[in-house]
């Protein structure tokens, strides 16, 4: 009896063991549930990876688009086709698109950095040029009422061979604006064309483009001439006319200004009769007359700053008065 019980007990314990192993080792039903969970997890991960990849791709395309947009790839109008360098001291460079609109302004020297040029972006290049001249006058860099000759150098560069016509049109517009008179006729304005190479070289040498061009036309020992110094030599002026158009200061205004100085000298008891006669002569060479008036003025007004040296080599152009 005991043997039978033991046998039954043995059988029962083996069954229990089998049940335990079947249920916990590699249970088919239990594992199926786990497999379904795993499938859901794996497909979820795949989906997440796919979404992640898609999101990354979208981001990458977006970033690329932004970069291309910034480089003006998608926007023809935002591409620089011309450079307009305005050298008065201060010196500025306007990047202009095919429509003649300013898309970037660079303050080339220290004096130029004093001006807030943001408002020039989006303006037609002619209007922006006029604004710069107004600022220079307000800041005292240009003064039509002294004996110093003020020169404004306007240099254009075509930076896109396919848009040469746009640059030519821009030059024409700038010239028309200058010839139209107004305040600009108080100064001598030099309109020049420069090559891309000259532009690159001027950047490399950190010299404003207009100054770089005129200095390239004279022999000097590594000393950069200011506009005033350059134009003080009539030979230089004559030479420059071969490649630039010099729009002289309005003759009547110049005559009036010279007359103002002759009057002043006369009040100081200087003998100005010969000078006055020459001023009244319509055929008189005003440059020569001005040079003589300046000489007399300098002789009697040594402490005045009328003939103060103009800009330094790294800060070329007209000096602040």
């Amino acid at each position, binding site marked *: 009896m005991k043997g039978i*019980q033991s046998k039954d007990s043995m059988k029962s314990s083996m069954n229990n063991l089998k049940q335990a192993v079947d249920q916990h*080792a*590699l249970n*088919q039903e239990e594992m199926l549930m786990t497999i379904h969970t795993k499938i859901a997890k794996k497909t979820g991960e795949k989906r997440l990876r796919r979404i992640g990849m898609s999101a990354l791709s979208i981001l990458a395309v977006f970033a690329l688009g932004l970069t291309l947009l910034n480089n003006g790839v998608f926007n023809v109008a935002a591409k620089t086709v011309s450079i307009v360098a305005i050298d008065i001291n201060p010196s500025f460079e306007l990047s202009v698109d095919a429509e003649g609109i300013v898309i970037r302004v660079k303050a080339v020297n220290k004096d130029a950095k004093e001006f807030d040029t943001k408002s020039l972006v989006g303006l037609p290049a002619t209007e922006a040029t006029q604004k710069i001249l107004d600022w220079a006058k307000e800041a005292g860099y240009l003064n039509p009422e002294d004996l110093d000759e003020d020169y404004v150098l306007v240099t254009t560069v075509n930076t896109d061979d396919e848009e040469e016509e746009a640059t030519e049109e821009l030059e024409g517009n700038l010239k028309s604006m200058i010839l139209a008179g107004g305040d600009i006729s108080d100064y001598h304005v030099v309109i020049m064309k420069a090559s891309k190479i000259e532009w690159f070289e001027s950047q490399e040498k950190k010299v404003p483009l207009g100054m770089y061009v005129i200095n390239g036309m004279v022999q000097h020992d590594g000393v950069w001439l200011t506009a005033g110094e350059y134009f003080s030599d009539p030979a230089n002026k004559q030479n420059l006319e071969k490649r630039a158009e010099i729009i002289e200061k309005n003759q009547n205004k110049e005559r009036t200004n010279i007359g103002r100085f002759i009057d002043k000298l006369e009040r100081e008891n200087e003998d100005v009769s010969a000078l006055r006669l020459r001023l009244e002569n319509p055929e008189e060479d005003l440059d020569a007359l001005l040079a003589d008036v300046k000489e007399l003025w300098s002789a009697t007004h040594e402490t005045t700053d009328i003939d103060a040296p103009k800009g330094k080599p790294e800060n070329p152009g007209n000096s602040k008065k």
Partner: protein
Amino acid sequence: MKRKNDEKQRFEEIYATTFPSVSRYVFFRMDNVEDARDILQNVYADYFINVIRKKKNIENPEAYLIRMSENQCAAFYRTSKRFITQDDIEPIEDKVVANEDTELSAINQATTQQIWASISKLPLLDQRILVARFHYDLTFLEIATQFDMQEEKIKARYYRSIKKIRELLNL
């Protein structure tokens, strides 16, 4: 929704018919039950994702699943340090005679969870022998062949394991 149900049904049919052979194949190639379980789960999950869901037509799912298992087992051992049975190191105890009511009652009264918890504390080889014996209903000779061991050694380890389980359950 219908498509998902169809996929699930198709998968479960294949699972039901192939699991015994595939699980046995994996079980005897892995050094422990837990790793075998992981491999099987991955094999079937991958089969669902890459075959069922993609509507691939596989002529012999069982052979395909075994091939997948083979690859997964090989991959597992490429990256894991294999457990090597050093049978001679462990002393083989005498055959356990489990004929005493007091000793057997512990196994009879324990829940399957308690029994499995005790089995999990045994050496990996002993666990595998028990699974081979109880789950796959293999004879000692078959187990010895699968594990490339002497039949007597398998028997000895088997009885020693039963004794150990009883001891663990009586604690």
